[in-house]
């Protein structure tokens, strides 16, 4: 009886581990249009309403937690005020939620009207309804999908600057790969110096991006702004239109042995606290027919 139980236990473990490895291998080996990816997109579509519901329903709780965190150090001296604080706490959380949303929406409206908003693009506002739990995948899920004109490979911004790009789309939801994801790469330019490079992430540190492949000898000043370069060649063009702010230069690493210098920058967008973003759409939809680069 005991041996049978042990055999059963080991068999279940072996089957589950085998299944996991088989899934991993099959998924890693197939293209983005493969069967497993298609199943995932379908699942994302099915899960989106649940995520959105949970995200909306528990947003006051999240904001309340944030408020508690912010107010942790504050000391209340008057005991008579405690009851009133209790009552006001929930009201304040609701008000702060509104203020935060309002600030982000105002920033987005400002960006839409600013000269840096790229020509030929339209915008679709979206709310963040999910986030990857691990630093190894810097992705968010938004509540807009192909039904609202969102397509894969479209740039995503917020009021502060570039956020990432759409990587998977279902009818009512989409997954956005942030610029802090290790698979992300954005061709960028330091202004006004003009040095070009490729913005890559530092895994685990969302406040530090690296502008790599900057030609040695090009002057890059601390505090300079880095924007998307939006290059275009004969048959290939960048995913990101020119001029979207990415971040500001914090320091420059230049080693004598290296051919290029590495420029560190701090992203303008607070990628840990995204609530509302905007997808830049084009009239022709996605760019699936064109060859695109970073």
């Amino acid at each position: 009886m005991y041996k049978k139980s042990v055999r059963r236990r080991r068999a279940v473990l072996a089957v589950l581990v085998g299944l996991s490895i088989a899934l991993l291998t099959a998924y890693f080996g197939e293209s983005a249009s493969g069967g497993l990816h298609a199943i995932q997109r379908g699942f994302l579509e099915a899960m989106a309403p649940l995520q959105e519901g949970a995200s909306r329903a528990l947003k006051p709780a999240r904001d309340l937690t944030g408020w508690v965190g912010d107010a942790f150090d504050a000391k209340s001296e008057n005991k008579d005020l405690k009851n009133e604080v209790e009552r006001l706490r929930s009201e304040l959380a609701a008000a702060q939620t509104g203020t935060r949303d309002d600030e982000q929406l105002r920033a987005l409206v400002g960006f839409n009207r600013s000269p840096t908003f790229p020509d030929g693009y339209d915008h679709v506002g979206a709310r963040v309804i999910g986030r990857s739990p691990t630093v190894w995948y810097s992705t968010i899920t938004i509540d807009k999908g192909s039904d609202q004109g969102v397509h894969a490979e479209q740039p995503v911004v917020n009021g502060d600057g570039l956020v990432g790009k759409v990587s998977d789309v279902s009818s009512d939801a989409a997954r956005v790969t942030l610029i802090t994801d290790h698979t992300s790469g954005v061709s960028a330019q330091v202004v006004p110096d003009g040095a070009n490079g490729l913005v890559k992430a530092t895994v685990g540190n969302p406040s530090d991006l690296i502008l790599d492949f900057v030609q040695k000898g090009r002057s890059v000043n601390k505090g300079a702004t880095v924007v998307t370069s939006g290059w275009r060649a004969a048959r290939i063009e960048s995913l990101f239109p020119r001029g979207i702010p990415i971040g500001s230069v914090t320091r420059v690493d230049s080693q004598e042995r290296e051919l290029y210098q590495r420029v560190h920058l701090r992203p303008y967008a607070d990628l840990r606290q995204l609530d509302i973003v905007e997808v830049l759409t084009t009239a022709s939809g996605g760019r699936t027919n064109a060859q695109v680069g970073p």
Partner: protein
Amino acid sequence: MTASFTGVLRIAALVLLTVVLEIAVVTQITIFGANVDLLVLVTLSVGLLGGPIAGAVVGFSIGLVADMALVQTLGVTSLLLTGVGYLGGRYRELRDATHKLVPVLGGFVAALCFSACFAVIQFLLGVDSTVSWLVARDALVGAILTALFAPPVFAVVRWVLRPDLIEEMRPRRRPITNLRLSP
């Protein structure tokens, strides 16, 4: 562990709810840059309450649903959570899992090991960017937070699975041998 049909439904609901809460709520509440790993905690709790098979199956299911919902490489989270659930269940078989500190220490160790193994797999699959040491700090802070939240999560899982699982968690009483009739 033997689960009834309603028990299976409860476990399925628990799996789905865990993933939805983790993705939509828990990940958006960060403390010192890290957050509680609800996936690990629920898997570990099921393992500690239901044994290695229940732990492994629930871990695999939670991992699969999470990977599907997050559109990330399938199989990675399933593989690791299968291990977490199985080892949690084995601990229950070999040691006293009724102590109140077991979920706390188990949550810390499981979350830390999960983060470390996840990192190793990512390196094996290929990482195109520089990796900051802050990853280690986040893993440690996340493990501490996970440990702190272990008791309530464990209690909730026990409450949800009580009809099917809790029988085996009760402390075993010594059989009464010296029964005598009163005069």
